[in-house]
């Protein structure tokens, strides 16, 4: 769209959109009310959190790194936002955001200054942020103030139509998209992922760029935490378990290479939506009363679905990988 490449890059980014469309058509035909306003609103309201962390994760993965801490940071930030909720969303939102930024900054410090590999650094942050959340919250959910405008943010809709959380996620989405395609920072992120050594020698301030990327990921998680607290009425120190894995899956389904250097923000959005649709559809399927899938079968099916998507993904994108593998 921004004219980065004039030819269609590869099937990967389009494939995931095609998959989304097919799944939506299937579900619309099969289930009543699937495309109903209520389902669409709540679907995006809930998934705005996953979209946010997937977007942050996408940037991190484009640099060739990974951020395992996002789930815990969501929890921590939701607790902080809940504590600051009496002062209204004007204060609670920045507070939650800052929490995420702080966590991202610590990740950045561990990775760039202490030179600890991202996997381990963010794994430690995953444990640490969870611990902090539990300590701060005294091991229980923290109630929010229902009298301030804090919960309005999570529970009401702009123009009575679009959940505020969705608007927030959309703003972040656009900002990150433009950032990646049209700013020096975005180019640096992709350059580092493509070849960190070369990037350094080409004069890219590698550490600074990495730091910013982890901070953005933390910030996205922080915003997701604010949405969690305000949309669900509590700071939840135990929430977000395993969210990092669904974020990674979204990013990969969106065609971003885990080795870094190649990636797309819109396709990441599609990846997150696609994974979210699976849960939604499983719920609707159970409502049909044809077969009632136990939670366990649902796990098996989700695993199988992920399998199919990544295999298809590797096929359509595989040309490039395979060619490079043989020369």
């Amino acid at each position, binding site marked *: 769209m921004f004219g980065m*490449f004039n030819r269609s890059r590869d099937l990967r980014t389009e494939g995931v959109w095609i998959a989304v469309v097919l799944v939506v058509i299937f579900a619309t035909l099969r289930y009543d009310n699937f495309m109903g306003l209520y389902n669409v609103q709540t679907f995006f309201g809930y998934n705005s959190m996953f979209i946010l962390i997937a977007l942050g994760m996408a940037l991190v993965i484009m640099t060739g790194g990974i951020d395992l801490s996002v789930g815990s940071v969501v929890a921590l930030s939701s607790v902080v936002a809940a504590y600051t909720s009496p002062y209204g969303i004007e204060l609670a939102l920045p507070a939650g955001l800052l929490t995420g930024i702080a966590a991202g900054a610590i990740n950045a410090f561990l990775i760039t200054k202490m030179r600890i590999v991202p996997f381990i650094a963010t794994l430690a942050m995953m444990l640490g942020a969870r611990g902090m959340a539990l300590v701060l919250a005294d091991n229980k959910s923290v109630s929010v103030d229902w009298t301030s405008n804090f919960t309005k943010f999570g529970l009401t809709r702009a123009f009575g139509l679009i959940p505020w959380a969705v608007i927030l996620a959309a703003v972040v989405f656009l900002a990150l998209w433009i950032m990646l395609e*049209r700013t020096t920072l975005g180019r640096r992120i992709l350059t580092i992922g*493509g070849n960190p050594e070369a990037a350094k020698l080409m004069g890219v301030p590698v550490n600074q760029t990495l730091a910013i990327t982890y901070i953005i990921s933390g910030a996205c998680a922080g915003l997701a935490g604010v949405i969690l607290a305000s949309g669900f009425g509590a700071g939840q120190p135990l929430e977000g378990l395993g969210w990092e894995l669904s974020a990674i899956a979204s990013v990969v389904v969106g065609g971003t290479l885990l080795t870094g250097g190649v990636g797309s923000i819109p396709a990441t959005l599609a990846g997150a939506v696609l994974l979210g649709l699976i849960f939604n559809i499983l719920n609707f399927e159970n409502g049909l009363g044809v077969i009632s899938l136990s939670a366990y079968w649902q796990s098996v099916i989700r695993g199988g679905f992920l399998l199919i998507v990544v295999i298809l993904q590797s096929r359509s994108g595989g040309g490039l990988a395979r060619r490079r593998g043989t020369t």
Partner: protein
Amino acid sequence: MVDTPVLKMTAIRKSFGDVPALTDAALTIRPGEVHALIGQNGAGKSTMIKILNGAYRKDAGEIELDGQAVRFSSPHEAQLGGISTIFQEVNLVHYRSVTENIVLGQEPKKFGMIDWPKAHRRAEEVLQRFGLNLDVRQPLHHCNIAVQQLIAIARAVSFDARLVIMDEPTSSLDSQEKQVLFRVIRDLSAQGVAVLYVSHHLEELFEVCDRVTVMRNGSMIATHEMSDVTKLGLVSEMIGRDANQIAESGATGFGKTHAGSQTVVLELQNLSNGTNVKDASLIVHQGEIVGLAGLLGAGRTETVAMIFCADHPAGGNMAFKEHRSFFREPAEAINAGIGYCTEDRKAEGIIPGLSIRENLTLAMIPRLAKRGVIPRMAEREMVADFIDKLSVKCAGMDQPIRELSGGNQQKVLLARWMATQPDLLILDEPTRGIDVGAKREIQTLIEGLSAAGLSVLMISSEFEELVEGANRVVVLQEGKAITTLTGGDLNEDSLLAAVAGEAEGAAL
């Protein structure tokens, strides 16, 4: 007007752990001059450069730029300080577009956003200077190595630098492209930009350089005006041996003492890979050294890669000894008696974290191992033997190979294949990045092996090497074998004519 030097490095010292790389290095470059830096493999040239531009930190010494003491802590800072570098290994980002690789760090902006149309235009302009007309929007990895190297050079030159450093910039360039590069270097020099030029190709120095500094074992030996020295004199300073002695033994180690037998070892018929190799045919006899010549992008690498099943062939026939079809795995080719030393040392040759020993024996483990267990003593003896024979400069066989200089890594890789005692050895640019002394040793070795019955198929961009070393040279043009030169027909002029042929400029 020859007042303050643009660069003055004095008493530079640098050690990696216990290994000293630079002991007393010095370098002075005048404004606008083209200054050569030469020395054997491991002499410390690359280290010197990396210290200069902040990639490494020096242990001691002074660096002055325009008379001012400077200390860069990253290539980025050096770039801002007016030093722009082209590194020995092409260091660009494959997945990103050509434009990005060129403008990264100085993107044109509009309202704080990158102005892509303008960026593309600028990239095109910069490349035009090198006579390159290509789609700058395509990902870099769609370009061949030569173009990539030119892009790297174009990038470095596009910064407004006081000093441009080129570490073996011609290692992937053919003679035409070299001329383009030299023209650009002269342009730079005319504009007052100094160029530091590192190369093992001494002839090149006489073509473009004004002065030369010789390094040996981490120290500066001498600096001369180019007009005051001879090739032989430089070589003797580099190696530290008497000039007469060297003159006696010839420029290359090839003596071409024998001809191959009549037994055909390898036969390729109409080989194609569906892309750039279209109709490659050639024959290698037992004990013969066959050269493979062509412009960059002529498909030499791809052709030999298919023999070894490093690449999958799309058509044609192959026969190797009694084996009458293509191999399905490199392992099969090795078993059948082929060795293949690749062109891209870093990506396809060394296992950086493993030791010299482990790298050296890698291809022959199946033969070495007894019931899956590697016999320790036998392995060590063999490795010690090769290190000795090839005089690999290292701290010991258990040193990680990544710590060796480029040339010494190349020797270990050659040893890897010699150790498998193949019937056919395929060498893709075997002496690229290797100093004169080592080159001779390697060439002598190849010659000796072929005298003992080994067949060699060798790709080289150096005509001298092919003319002196090969019994026959097959010339590829755009993926087709167009002619074979033997005997009296085989000289540098005929080779140049055949390689370039009608395909003037077709390489790009």
